[in-house]
């Protein structure tokens, strides 16, 4: 699968960075590790193609350097429990079985016991990592109705495999993360999401879900024309406006309605789920969740307390 050339590089810049987030929206203070840049999964709505200029997949192979950067970030943070992820510029697991890139990081977080590493993916292959998994690793999958996976995420694992992999990660003692992102409006999407959330509740132990993110489809203007040229009916079915960050988003009235629907469906499954909105404005937060994190710092505080609740004193 995937014809993109793989290139091993030893970048000496900042490989561990603050998640760029987006202007005028509340972000969660995530730390990204650019272990791999580029993705072989080629989801139709993916914004990576707009940001990365080369078709090559770049692997940063200087693991000691990366670990030293992670250490520095952990040591520098005095207030919050840091959450790191390798899924910002790539899919965390898509090429991992072949190149075994995450194993040293997984072991490092297990030994350090001071922060969390999230492996976020749409590629349900974790068997090679199970011997090394530890409570400081969060296995996360982006979840969508199978209809969207078939049309827009053609190279990724089917939904049932993602859910099975999440269950397996829980059985290995890990907490898991769920990302309903991007949520796409198409004809009949409400029913599909209702079924999806029902499936999640049946297969996964929701008490051991560390976080759930909700994010409605958003994309930079350049992608709008690409979607139109490629006749992406699903992606352009909803009604869009340009947000303050310049990206296209669904009109606010719809965002509030859909977030509210998903939030309630999830809470009906498990009332204690920690659900956050990815890159949303605070008025949307308030309308949907009743909470109003004033800024990024406040949202990081919510994450801290969630982690403390589930981990107790071990973090």
């Amino acid at each position, binding site marked *: 699968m995937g014809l993109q050339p793989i290139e091993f590089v030893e970048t000496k810049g900042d490989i561990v960075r603050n998640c760029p987030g987006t202007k005028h929206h509340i972000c969660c203070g995530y730390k990204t590790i650019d272990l791999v840049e580029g993705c072989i999964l080629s989801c139709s709505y993916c914004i990576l193609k707009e940001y990365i200029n080369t078709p090559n997949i770049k692997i940063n192979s200087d693991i000691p350097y990366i670990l030293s950067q992670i250490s520095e970030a952990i040591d520098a943070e005095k207030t919050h429990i840091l959450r790191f992820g390798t899924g910002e510029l790539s899919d965390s697991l898509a090429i991992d079985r072949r190149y075994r890139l995450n194993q040293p990081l997984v072991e490092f977080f297990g030994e350090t016991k001071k922060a969390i590493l999230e492996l976020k993916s749409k590629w349900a292959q974790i068997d090679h990592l199970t011997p090394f998994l530890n409570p400081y690793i969060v296995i996360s999958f982006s979840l969508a109705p199978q209809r969207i996976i078939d049309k827009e995420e053609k190279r990724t694992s089917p939904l049932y495999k993602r859910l099975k992999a999440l269950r397996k990660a829980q059985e290995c003692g890990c907490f898991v993360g769920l990302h309903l992102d991007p949520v796409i409006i198409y004809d009949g999407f409400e029913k599909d999401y209702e079924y999806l959330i029902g499936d999640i509740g049946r297969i996964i132990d929701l008490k051991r879900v560390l976080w759930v993110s909700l994010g409605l489809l958003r994309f930079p203007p350049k992608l709008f024309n690409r979607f139109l040229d490629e006749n992406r009916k699903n992606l352009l079915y909803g009604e869009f406006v*340009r947000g303050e960050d310049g990206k296209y988003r669904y009109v606010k009235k719809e965002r509030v309605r859909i977030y509210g629907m998903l939030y309630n469906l999830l809470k009906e499954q498990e009332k204690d789920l920690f659900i956050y909105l990815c890159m949303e404005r605070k008025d949307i937060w308030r309308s949907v969740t009743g909470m109003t994190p004033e800024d990024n710092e406040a949202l990081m505080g919510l994450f801290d307390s969630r982690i403390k609740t589930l981990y107790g004193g071990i973090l």
Partner: protein
Amino acid sequence: MQTIPIERINMNDRRFCISYPLQDDALLSSIRMEGVIQPLLILDKQPHTIVSGFKRIEAAKELGFTDIPCFVMDMDYKKAMQASIHSNLGRVLNIIEKAYCVDKLFTMDFSEEEISGVMSMISLGFYEKIIKRMRALANAENFVKDFVLQKNMTMQNVEKLLGFADHEIKDITEMLNRIHTTESMMREILQMLSIMKLKYGNIDFSAIKGMNNIYDLKRSLKYSINPILSGLEEDLSEIKNRCALPPSIDIKVDPFFEKEYIDIRIRANGPEEVKGALLKINSILDAGYIRSIFGLTTY
């Protein structure tokens, strides 16, 4: 150079013709006054095939000429095509003529290097996308070519237009022929029509066909592809109408109904006018109109 009877020239053989349109009023006037000064280039075969001079012979025929000056040459088709293109490079080619150049070079199996060379001379990059667009335009129906020239369309808009089915192109050109549009308006309209087609599978021309005004057309298309936003705009307009605001007071809401705050602007020439405006604002506040406006952005 020879003078050849027009009837011995095959005017229907246009395989070397890159001129569009063939009717040229300025040339017609010139030939009426001075005759055909520049001879045609024709092939030495019977009947003669024109290599260059399609517009001149068209004008001469219209003026009732029976003979026309020509250079009769013996050359193969590729050389003839090159001669046709190079004899036209002295003037600015329009987009259709450029499209003909590209299409004919491909049809006659010129090498990529030769085609790329010509495309560079007519300011076109040798890219698959451009070649595809140009060939589609060269093979479009004449009413499409006329529309493209008349509206002085950019390549981007031409591509959008040609992305529609033939029957839709006919309806779109008919509709837009009646309306004055700028390039950006055209882009906007074509994009809205593309979205409408993508969303609903077809374009409902019955609702927009009779429109003669760009703003009505845009509003109607917007309502179709952005019903929620259009509904909010209508609600806002209705509330503002009920407020009966004087010209000195305006209430502005974020155009996308995203931000929760509103702006209230007062224009006043003195304390008395400020006082009057504040009284008016107080009255619409008491009547609940301001709350209704906030209701459009807060859920």
